[in-house]
């Protein structure tokens, strides 16, 4: 299947919008292997200290730096962990590059995050601990915000690079962090991290275990960027060479062994991992299994431990059926758990969607209840930020389906029953374009709008529609959102946003976007983001439709496996917290 199937991607939540671009471009299918990881459950229980230097920083609490040893023993869940076994991940798409600064397709992220670490990681349960967003239990053992522009990171002292040439087990120091951040914000046009790190002004390493980062302007998303999946810390010995794409040498729980092209990537346990005792699997094999039928057969046969998905690709009845066939499984159902959802996406500079009333006709006209039903009941409304995230709007914030109002709006815009609106949605087979468009076409019928589907070739769509061409009316697809509203909304809806592909312009939205960017108080920022989202929903450069739920099965022998809260892209590396009991024989 070359078809890039969004619903298959939907079974996993942690893919970024950017990942989609490259992954889709590759004509590859999405993650099948779990992107979610095993979570230690330790982070949000760690005692927090507030640097207190600025009252408005109080919301973004930096937890006390726990030692690695303390972590391993502090978590009672890990006390019974067993070592051993080979963990198989069935991945639909082969990694493109192991350099996550460059490529973040689902496969690339999955593989690289077994090997590399980040400075920070996202708190596991955002909703339960809303004050803590990014915690420092990766390479940063602690961090504090000195003032609105300055962050100081203390680094773990016992981290070493994998003992592989050319890095050869060198000790990890602040210099590596400085190198990596400078690389990410550098000028290599192939690196996709540049805009996220662009607000950084300078990076200093006053001593081997301290890094001080100064931003050019108050940048509330900074910690989110530092904890972002593809903000991996890399050694210069490798990252400066072209080998970095086909090889990975990190500080992480697993050591990259080899990449058998089109077949599998092999990883071995890192015995010198800075969290002593971890990880628990002796080997990890990330197998490239492009066919959904094959992945399903592998799960049924016990060769993999996680399988599941979302309708319409994997209807929940199929999952029930599997549950009967494979009894020793845990099931995790999640309502609207996915990062974002499906949307109608308009070119706001061309007729007919340069008329706000026409866009709003979609907002009021679409039959959301029907869509939610088709997606099997675990779906919910989608918004500019996912509803399940702390930034998300509530269902009640959205207008309900109102066909009469939609018709009135169209009439005001000059589209009457005699002269009905007929639009063309330009899609590709990627990003669930076909599924979303077929449904949209039908749910807009009662409003008297004819939606024609024009399917074009994948790369043509990405470069000419998805990334903001001028010669299209609208498109419709499913997509993730970023977990931080600055990344999730600024680039897409600010007049000068580098991904403002709807060509949307609003001075009010621009002002709110600037305001949230400099607001460090989480509650205050949430309010701004809420106002911004209400504005976006009403202005409707996109009409957000629904996001589906997921239903996932995992074998009981896989312990401490938790599906992560949506948006936690760091979960990719958290296989270090999982173990087998009993250990499978093969």
């Amino acid at each position, binding site marked *: 299947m070359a078809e890039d199937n969004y619903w298959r991607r939907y079974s996993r939540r942690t893919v970024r919008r950017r990942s989609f671009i490259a992954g889709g471009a*590759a004509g590859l299918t999405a993650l099948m292997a779990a992107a979610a990881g095993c979570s230690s459950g330790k982070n949000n229980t760690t005692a927090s200290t507030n640097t207190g230097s600025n009252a408005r920083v109080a919301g973004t609490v930096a937890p006390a730096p726990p030692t690695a040893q303390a972590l391993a023993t502090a978590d009672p869940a890990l006390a019974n962990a067993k070592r051993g076994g080979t963990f198989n991940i069935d991945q639909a798409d082969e990694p493109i590059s192991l350099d996550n600064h460059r490529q973040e397709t689902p496969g690339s992220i999955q593989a690289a995050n077994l090997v590399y670490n980040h400075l920070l990681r996202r708190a596991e349960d955002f909703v339960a601990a809303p004050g803590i967003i990014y915690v420092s239990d990766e390479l940063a053992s602690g961090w504090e915000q000195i003032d609105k522009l300055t962050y100081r990171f203390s680094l773990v002292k016992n981290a070493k690079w994998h003992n592989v040439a050319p890095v050869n087990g060198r000790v990890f120091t602040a210099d590596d962090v400085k190198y990596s951040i400078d690389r990410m914000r550098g000028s290599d046009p192939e690196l996709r991290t540049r805009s996220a790190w662009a607000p950084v002004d300078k990076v200093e390493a006053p001593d081997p275990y301290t890094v001080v980062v100064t931003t050019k302007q108050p940048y509330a998303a900074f910690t989110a960027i530092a904890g972002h999946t593809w903000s991996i810390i890399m050694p210069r010995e490798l990252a400066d060479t072209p080998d970095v794409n086909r090889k990975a040498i990190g500080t992480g729980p697993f050591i990259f062994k080899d990449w058998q092209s089109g077949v599998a990537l092999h990883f071995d346990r890192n015995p010198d991992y800075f969290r002593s005792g971890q990880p628990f699997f002796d080997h990890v094999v990330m197998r490239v299994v492009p066919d959904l039928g094959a992945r399903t057969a592998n799960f049924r046969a016990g060769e993999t431990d996680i399988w599941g998905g979302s309708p319409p690709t994997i209807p929940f009845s199929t999952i029930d059926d599997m549950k009967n066939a494979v009894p020793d499984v845990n099931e995790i159902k999640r309502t609207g758990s996915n990062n974002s959802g499906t949307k109608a996406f308009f070119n706001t500079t061309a007729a007919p969607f340069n008329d706000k009333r026409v866009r709003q006709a979609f907002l009021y006209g679409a039959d959301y209840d029907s869509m939610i039903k088709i997606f099997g009941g675990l779906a919910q409304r989608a918004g500019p930020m996912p509803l399940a995230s702390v930034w998300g709007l509530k269902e009640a914030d959205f207008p309900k389906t109102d066909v009469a109002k939609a018709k009135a709006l169209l009439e005001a815009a000059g589209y009457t029953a005699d002269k009905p609106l007929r639009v063309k949605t330009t899609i590709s087979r990627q990003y669930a374009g076909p599924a979303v468009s077929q449904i949209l076409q039908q749910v807009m019928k009662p409003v008297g709008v004819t939606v024609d589907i024009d399917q074009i070739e994948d790369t043509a769509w990405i470069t000419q529609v998805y990334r903001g061409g001028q010669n299209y009316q609208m498109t419709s697809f499913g997509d993730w959102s970023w977990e931080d509203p600055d990344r999730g909304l600024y680039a897409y809806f600010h007049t000068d946003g580098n991904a403002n592909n709807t060509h949307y312009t609003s001075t009010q939205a621009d002002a709110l976007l600037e305001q949230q960017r400099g607001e460090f108080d989480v509650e205050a920022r949430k309010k701004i983001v809420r106002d911004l989202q209400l504005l976006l929903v009403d202005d409707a450069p996109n009409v957000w439709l629904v996001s589906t739920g997921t239903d996932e099965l995992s074998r009981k022998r896989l312990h401490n496996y938790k599906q992560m809260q949506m948006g936690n892209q760091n979960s990719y590396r958290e296989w270090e917290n999982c173990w087998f009991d009993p250990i499978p024989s093969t």
Partner: protein
Amino acid sequence: MSNYILRRLIASIPVLVLVTFGAFALIRIIPGDLAALKLGNDATPQEIRDYRTKLGLNDPLPAQYIKWIGHTLTGDFGQSQWEYRPVADVVRDKFPVTLELALLAVAISTAFAIPLGILSAVRQDSLLDQALRFTAILFLAIPSFWLAILLITLPPIWFGWKPPLTGYATPWQDPALNFRRMIWPALVLGVGSAAFVLRLMRSSLLEILRQDYIRTAWSKGLRERTVILRHGVKVGMIPIVTVLGLQFSVLLGGAVIAEQVFGLPGMGRSLLGAVSRRDYPLVQTYVLIFALVYLVMNLIVDLLYGYLDPRITYS
């Protein structure tokens, strides 16, 4: 004879030029831009233009083509844009897989089709003949991807067994694993081909058996087996050889579905991705390989004619 081969090789040069230039132009006129795809949203339009220049994509098409041909002739196939390694390395990984799959499929096809085809012709209009013919025509009508997915979906449910779908080793590294991985996709590919060859073998043999020299052989009192095998089958093989030769190229190109479903690291899957991601150097090299294989197979087929039918000479 060697003269003949030489002339054939020379005659294939314009064909190769046409094919490579066709591929070269075709993949470039599909809308969509490699540079924009590769760089993403963070890149400015200027950076994308510069990147195109760096890749040489802003040069006139004929100039790009000549440059590529020049490099190819010196053994430099370029750098794969999305595999981040030389095209030659990628091809070295992928081509043998598909080659082996195609060979195995042709072998399976031959092993089934030729004996059954002979049987079908000899027992013309018997129940066996009817059954074989109907089975063959049925297999020709079943979509191969459908057969492949049935094979990986139903046996696990019915018997708790499934064909191996992960891992791969070359026959030199691990012949057993290689065979386990290859046999099922080869069967799926092979049965379709076998159905075709069986029908052809049958009709070809029937026709031969009506020829005068076969009647002569009968009248000389030779045994049935001798007549059929020695005189009938050898000549009857001529169209079969043609078809097998062509089937081989066909299977080489058609392996993509089997590779996709069974997860084999072959050239078809790679090609599909390369086209959709505009990996120009990789696509061009694959097309060149396809064309070369096709031309070489055609030549081999023609040479085999001479062996099978002594009336044909090469001058």
